């Protein structure tokens, strides 16, 4: 038993020593002369190793196989049921088994960071997850979205009562994905944060744990997703933005029926993503002249929009740069040093303990803010350009004689196949031929 006085004494010494540098070995480690006690070995700690690399390669292999199979099922087999089964597999494997990390959507940020940060070396899996779906999209359309992406799969499964979103609303909402992509690239390039991962609505479901806010957000997406087909994919997914554009130029594409379209319009009802375009009517009289003038105005408007949005991106740099930890710290230290706040935070205490000069921190923060200024111009300009091109795209009339899947918006889910009477006829004929032979 030790006297309380002894402990109080020790506590006094403790307080005196509080200012002393951390981790100094004040008490020499003992030599156990009597018992010859052996120290527990260090490999107690180091024996617990991360998952072996081989699993990463297996992931890439599964991704490649799933992409290939999905492309085959969409373009050749033309079977919604098979696509659905593959989709469920992807949800289980990439979602629940691999806990949703790393995914192609998040890999955008790894790619960006590795381009802008010389110290960050990208793991080969992140590169593969980013590049492979894009390559497949260039050849086969968005078959990645159809049955490989776990985020798409979880939304597709809950889609029970689809309602159609008005075209104007869909076009407006889709712009958000471009803003999201721009912001994600900006924050990743400056080394501030991986916002796509931070605000991934479904990852808490895949991990079966997560913060309450993210669980609520994910639940909201799923509830909305019962009625509106794949809301995250269509209006938010930054990777989807890239896939959209790549899919426009794909070598192969989803056809509702390989046979002749009889223009019944049934397929349009079947598509929950509003990705089927109806045949265009004859041009109204005088439309051509009007559209020419409108196009000219819009082409002039594009650089103006790009400049305006770029300036806006530049103007919000003080707010945006707060995503970076050093800028936040510098602002906090400034507040403390000028006496505007009385208390201290863990971060400011930790900074002062390092003995680094405040001036250096301020210089660092202002450099980061300048980077955000330049990045703001670029990202804002990009968003302005997108808005301008979107407006131009809305005014340009394309001639279509049949119902067809929109190259960019089609998620290759295969729902329209069995709605098409021509397709049913084709399958029936095919069956009969097989039956006869």
């Amino acid at each position, binding site marked *: *038993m030790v006297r*309380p006085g002894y*402990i109080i004494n*020790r506590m006094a*010494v*403790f307080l005196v*020593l*509080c200012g002393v540098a*951390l*981790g*100094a*070995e*004040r008490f*020499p*480690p003992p030599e*156990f002369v*009597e*018992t010859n006690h052996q*120290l527990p070995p*260090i490999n107690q700690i*180091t024996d*617990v*190793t*991360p998952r072996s*690399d081989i699993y990463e390669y297996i992931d890439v292999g599964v991704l490649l196989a799933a992409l290939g199979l999905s492309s085959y099922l969409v373009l050749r087999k033309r079977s919604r049921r098979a696509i659905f089964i593959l989709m469920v597999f992807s949800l289980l494997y990439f979602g629940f088994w691999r*806990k949703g*990390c790393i995914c192609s959507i*998040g*890999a955008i*940020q*790894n790619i960006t960071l*590795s381009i802008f940060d010389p110290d960050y*070396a*990208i*793991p*080969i899996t992140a*590169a593969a997850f*980013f*590049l492979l779906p*894009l390559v497949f999209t*260039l050849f086969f359309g968005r078959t990645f979205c159809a049955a490989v992406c776990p985020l798409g799969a979880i939304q597709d499964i809950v889609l029970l009562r689809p309602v159609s979103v008005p075209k104007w609303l869909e076009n407006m909402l889709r712009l958000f994905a471009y803003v999201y992509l721009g912001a994600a690239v900006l924050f990743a390039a400056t080394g501030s*944060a*991986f916002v796509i*991962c*931070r605000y991934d609505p479904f*990852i808490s479901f895949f*991990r079966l*744990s*997560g913060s309450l806010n993210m669980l609520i957000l994910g639940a909201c997406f799923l509830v909305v997703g019962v009625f509106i087909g794949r809301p995250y994919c269509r209006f938010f997914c930054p990777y989807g933005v890239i896939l959209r554009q790549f899919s*426009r*130029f794909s*070598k192969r*594409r989803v056809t509702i029926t390989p046979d002749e379209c009889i223009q019944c319009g049934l397929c349009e009802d079947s598509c929950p993503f509003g990705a089927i375009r109806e045949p265009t009517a004859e041009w109204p009289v005088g439309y051509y002249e009007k559209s020419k003038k409108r196009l000219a105005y819009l082409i002039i408007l594009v650089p103006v929009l790009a400049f305006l949005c770029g300036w806006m991106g530049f103007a919000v740099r003080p707010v945006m740069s707060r995503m970076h*930890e050093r800028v936040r710290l510098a602002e906090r230290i400034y507040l403390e040093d000028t006496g505007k706040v009385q208390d201290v935070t*863990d*971060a400011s*205490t*930790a*900074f002062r303990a390092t003995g680094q000069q405040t001036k250096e921190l301020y210089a660092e923060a202002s450099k980061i803010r300048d980077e955000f200024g330049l990045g703001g111009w670029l990202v804002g300009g990009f968003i302005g350009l997108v808005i301008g091109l979107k407006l131009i795209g809305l005014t340009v009339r394309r001639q279509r004689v049949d119902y*067809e899947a929109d190259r960019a918006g089609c998620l290759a889910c295969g729902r329209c196949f069995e709605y098409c009477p021509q397709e049913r006829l084709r399958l029936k004929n095919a069956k009969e031929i097989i039956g006869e032979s």
Partner: protein
Amino acid sequence: MAEDNKTINGSAINRRHFLRDGFWGACMVSLGAVAGLLGRKYKKKDTVWQIDPYTCVACGNCATYCVLEESAVKCVKVFAICGYCDFCSAYYEPGAVALDTAAENQLCPTGAIKREFIEDPYYEYTIDEKLCIGCGKCVKGCAVFGNGALFLQVRHDRCLNCNECSIAAACPSGAFKRVPADKPYLLKETVHT
């Protein structure tokens, strides 16, 4: 292609296709460029998250910010640094009434540190990882008054290796780092030999 016969006249087809092929090629080239850029500096080994024990301030965020309900961060100990003190400031709460194993005297909120008598006057303190929540209270206690043998580390049997570690995002001292997966720990070194 199916749409060939759907366009109105021949010249439109050619222009369309020429543009499409051009853009297709441009996409391929840009992907190749990205792949080339990455290929120059790609790393075969994956990276994992780890805490630099010399930067860590044991703020306690590790216990609460991890996406796992029970944090992947745990306290570990390099025994060669430990002084085996009778009065261990990582084990006892400041103002402990007695130097025994009673719960009210312990600093650890889950009682994860075991105290064992070795020989006079030395005691060995070991951490039961199953109980440890990674709050870092003992780390702070050991650092301010002891040798600093205790420190926090990401345990890789638990860590999901998220693309963005949510503890790293909340770390006030920037102690979280991406380290190569074949050297996944940043251990403290002994000063005494």
